[in-house]
């Protein structure tokens, strides 16, 4: 739904789709009947109940992936296709030159992830920020990206970060959250304080339930309902009430400082970052549409 244009083009145009450990989730496929419609499918999964559930593969491969992948490994002569895919990737590369002086969340997240060391664990909550993390964070090891993904559970991020910090006491753990999500398990700031966990929180505040606001803007003719969080608490004071230091930022020239503090300060920390209230996540495949239909909009 929010995948890259190049990735969607590649899938829609391919003649063979090797689906490894995936469940053909509707967020990934868009309109199922038109998903990779020209392709034969090899579906590899350890779970027999997933194979053939939504898409009939030409070649189901049920079992442990390690030996299966080794057995399937072979050279392919598809240089022209590879060139085409890479050219598309370059043509549709992300842009970060947002035409304003405020903080541009995609750019901030990219900077943060690139400056962080390889073992940094990033947890996120649910909503627009979750999509930006998936799109723009360079995560070297996928298992270090903690997301409720398609389960979409707001409130996931903070407890997940806490668990990760307990499990990996030496790792830098950063929870990226939104102003909607953070209040769903905000009491866990007490856990962070009680155990002295050096969890960092990057709170991206657009004063709204952003993902729902975006859908109401695009698909419900701006009939906004129950998405306005203009009455948010002062999040820095909330963190401080729990004994956790915090600071705010909202200008483009403060982005580097935010990254610097999150990656260098010991101890827990809340970085409260304000962004444009009308920021949207692009590209977007409208619900029920084919992945060939991608909407784009302004960088706010």
């Amino acid at each position: 739904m929010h995948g890259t244009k190049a990735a969607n083009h590649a899938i829609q145009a391919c003649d063979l789709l090797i689906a490894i450990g995936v469940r053909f989730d509707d967020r990934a496929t868009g309109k199922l009947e038109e998903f990779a419609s020209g392709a034969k499918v090899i579906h590899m999964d350890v779970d027999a109940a997933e194979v053939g559930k939504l898409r009939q593969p030409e070649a189901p491969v049920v079992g442990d992936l390690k030996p299966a992948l080794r057995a399937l490994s072979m050279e392919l002569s598809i240089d022209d296709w590879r060139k085409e895919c890479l050219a598309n990737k370059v043509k549709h590369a992300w842009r970060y030159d947002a035409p304003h002086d405020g903080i541009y969340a995609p750019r901030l997240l990219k900077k943060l992830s690139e400056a962080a060391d390889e073992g940094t664990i990033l947890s996120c909550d649910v909503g627009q920020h979750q999509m930006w993390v998936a799109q723009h964070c360079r995560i070297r090891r996928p298992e270090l990206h903690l997301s409720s993904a398609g389960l979409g559970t707001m409130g996931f991020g903070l407890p997940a970060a806490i668990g990760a910090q307990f499990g990996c006491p030496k790792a830098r753990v950063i929870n990226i959250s939104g102003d909607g999500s953070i209040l769903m398990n905000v009491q866990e700031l007490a856990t962070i304080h009680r155990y002295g966990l050096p969890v960092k929180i990057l709170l991206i505040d657009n004063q709204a339930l952003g993902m729902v606001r975006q859908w109401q803007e695009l698909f419900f003719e701006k009939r906004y309902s129950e998405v306005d969080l203009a009455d948010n608490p002062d999040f820095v004071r909330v963190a401080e009430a729990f004994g956790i230091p915090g600071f705010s930022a909202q200008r483009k020239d403060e982005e580097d400082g935010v990254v610097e503090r999150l990656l260098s300060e010991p101890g827990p920390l809340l970085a409260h970052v304000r962004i444009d209230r009308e920021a949207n996540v692009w590209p977007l495949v409208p619900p029920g549409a084919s992945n060939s239909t991608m909407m784009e909009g302004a960088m706010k």
Partner: protein
Amino acid sequence: MATLQIQLKRVEGSLIRLLGLVGRRGFETEGITARSLEKHMDVTLTVRGARSVEVLGRQILKLEDVERVEAVESKRQ
């Protein structure tokens, strides 16, 4: 409509988990008989749904307390 024969371990909550799964996977339970043996429960379920009963059977088999599943597609309604 289809019928499933399921052998369950007699463990607290096993029947409820089975029925819950059937409902969550998009099927209506139209009929149920259950017979308790010493360590097992034999359950016959009649279900109705638009999806594949074969897939449902595989999903039921993933439950910890399910020992055997046999799916019989009877009438298409």
